[in-house]
């Protein structure tokens, strides 16, 4: 053990550094590599052209999610390009001996949902995937981040990637979250405070009571959104909540191996007096249910607020005005009462069981508003089964909602789940970029509570008004 106080990030990073190149990046060993159909085909072509094998196929896990349909999954995929990508994923997995949960498999689902729920994601790992929301796995005290296709190829070929060591930031939030405030609100609040680029160049550790008291699902939501403030990733020190979540999962260690792993995992925390390049502190009491109004995730505010004036935001005036013009919003306009057309519950941000429990809590005993088209998409088949088992599906059905089948769906609209041009969607996903949910679609990011409140009222509504108990 080093005597110098060290951060959690440094402990995990240093334990995976195979080599540090002078005046260059570190060569980082990767414990788990997730792949999906969109960012892997060209990487496989790359190693094929070079004539090199996959070095450790047992460390790579494939799942189909980005462009899979969310209805009629038993039928052939209609879009020929999507079908071709899905076929390429399956044939590459088969050719190289990589485990795959293809469309139709009972374990299929969004990569960042199925990894943790099957115990593939374990504390202290390095995890990469050709998807920026790989930061999700940081909830387990992992260094997890998104990579490009060239890097996917590197990992296939060598189980390593080259990364300059990022700077370290710690965000501490103490206090107790108020009524109706969910982990998604904590994430959106942090991003609105530091902007969509405020953590660029940093890897972030989240600390303090708010995160200590958060479930694993909540921690995953927060770490998932790290990339939306520009951070390479975010992580939370593993604790009893983490160990209880992991224990007994399919691929988690068992027996003696568990004891050995647990002893190591318990060392994974930032030492007192360890130094960060940047420290930020927020107060839980200042966080109310959030909603975004612009075209980057930093343009969000408390749901009771009005849309800020250009002079009040950190984005440049021209970019801010372009953003509001796209949304057809005006400076000073209130958000409450704004009529909405679509509600999307799902994605790697909010497609887990707790998100469906939260949504159901609000819609229970109410009815879907007539002007709302709602897409409720579980993150995996395991989540889908749990929704049925807990009686949540009955609550949803009684309120006039239907459940779709798992996938990334309207988060990035690669399949048919596209929000039409000009329509407003309140979405539990992670990005409100222009056209993200379909060309011309207008996205307002929010929590499952807010999405549910909108789904039953048809307009932007403060969920606290619909939640009876604290």
């Amino acid at each position, binding site marked *: 053990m080093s005597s110098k106080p060290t951060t959690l990030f440094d402990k995990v990073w240093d334990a995976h550094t*195979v080599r540090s190149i*002078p*005046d*260059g*990046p570190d*060569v980082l*060993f990767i*414990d*788990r590599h997730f792949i999906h159909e*969109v*960012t892997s085909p*060209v990487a496989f*072509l*790359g190693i094929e052209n*070079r004539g*090199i094998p996959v070095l450790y196929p047992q460390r790579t896990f494939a799942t189909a999610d*980005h462009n899979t349909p969310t209805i009629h999954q038993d039928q052939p995929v209609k879009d020929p390009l*999507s079908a*071709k*990508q899905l076929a390429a994923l399956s044939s590459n997995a088969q050719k190289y001996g990589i485990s795959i949960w293809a469309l139709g498999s009972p374990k299929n689902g969004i990569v960042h949902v199925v990894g943790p729920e099957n115990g593939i994601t374990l504390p*202290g*790992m390095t995890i990469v995937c*050709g*998807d*920026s929301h*790989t930061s999700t796995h940081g909830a387990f005290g992992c260094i997890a981040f*998104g*990579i*490009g*296709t*060239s*890097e996917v190829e*590197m990992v296939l*070929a*060598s*189980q*390593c990637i*080259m*990364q*300059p060591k*990022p700077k370290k930031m710690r965000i501490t939030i103490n206090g107790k979250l108020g009524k109706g405030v969910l982990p998604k609100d904590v994430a959106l609040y942090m991003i609105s405070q530091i902007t*969509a*680029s405020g953590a*660029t*160049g940093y890897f972030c550790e989240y600390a303090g009571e708010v995160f200590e008291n958060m479930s694993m699902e909540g921690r995953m939501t927060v770490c998932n959104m790290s*990339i939306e403030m*520009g951070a*390479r990733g975010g992580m939370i020190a593993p604790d009893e909540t983490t160990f209880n979540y992991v224990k007994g999962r399919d691929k988690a260690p068992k027996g003696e191996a568990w004891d050995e792993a647990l002893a190591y995992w318990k060392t994974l925390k930032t030492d007192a007096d360890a130094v960060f390049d940047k420290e930020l502190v927020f107060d839980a009491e200042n966080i109310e249910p959030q909603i975004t109004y612009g075209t*980057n995730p930093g343009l969000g505010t408390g749901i009771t607020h009005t849309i800020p004036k250009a002079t009040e935001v950190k984005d*440049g005036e*021209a*970019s801010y005005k*372009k953003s509001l013009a796209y949304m057809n919003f005006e400076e000073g306009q209130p958000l409450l009462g704004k009529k909405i057309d679509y509600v999307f519950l799902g994605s790697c941000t909010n497609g887990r069981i707790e998100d469906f429990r939260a949504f159901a809590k609000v819609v229970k005993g109410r009815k879907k508003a007539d002007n709302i088209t709602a897409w409720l998409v579980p993150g995996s088949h395991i989540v889908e089964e749990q929704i049925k088992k807990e009686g949540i599906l009955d609550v949803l059905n009684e309120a006039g909602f239907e459940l779709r089948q798992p996938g990334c769906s309207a988060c*990035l609209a*690669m399949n048919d789940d596209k929000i039409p041009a000009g329509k407003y969607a309140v979405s539990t996903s992670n*990005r409100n*970029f*222009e*056209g*993200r949910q379909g060309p011309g679609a207008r996205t307002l990011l929010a929590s499952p509570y807010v999405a549910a409140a909108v789904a039953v009222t048809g307009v932007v509504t403060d969920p606290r008004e619909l939640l009876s108990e604290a």
Partner: protein
Amino acid sequence: MAYDKFTVLRSTAVPMPIENVDTDQIIPARFLKATERKGFGDNLFRDWRYNSDDTPKKDFVLNNPIYSGKILVGGKNFGSGSSREHAAWAIYDYGFRCVVSSFFADIFKGNSLNVGILPVTVSEGFLDTIFKAIEADPKTEIEVNLSDQTITLLATGEQETFDINGYKKHNLMNGYDDIDYLQAMKSDITAFAEKSLY
């Protein structure tokens, strides 16, 4: 994948003074369905560049014949969002070899270096100087010298230096990629893997 070596680039530039240009704008998700790396340049900035009926939007800079060149100059936080390397492929395939901004998103920056595009980070002040120079004269020539790590407005001689680590610089100047390096250290990697807990 092989790319052209980068040494000195002298070119006019295309200005895009917009902040937070995210990778969904650079290449929308619906164009990520290819299983090969080709043709992405056609869909670069698709929804800013074309109307829904595929006619060009006249006011978008790539449709303005006054502007051309191998250098794209963008506002701060260029390349934010998704990790899709397709964004860098689209920029390269369109014909750009260098992107200049005051601030790049991390993943985009890494992807660019891996596909042979040089991301040049300049100060906010110098970025403003470049935008103004191009606005005054769209034929403004810029020289990017990787060896010296300088970017220069040729007409006035105004210049800044930029950072890049020695390893990546060497790779770009010689057209090498990381896999060449990683393959050469395979025995170190396999020895490391032996000790892995996971």
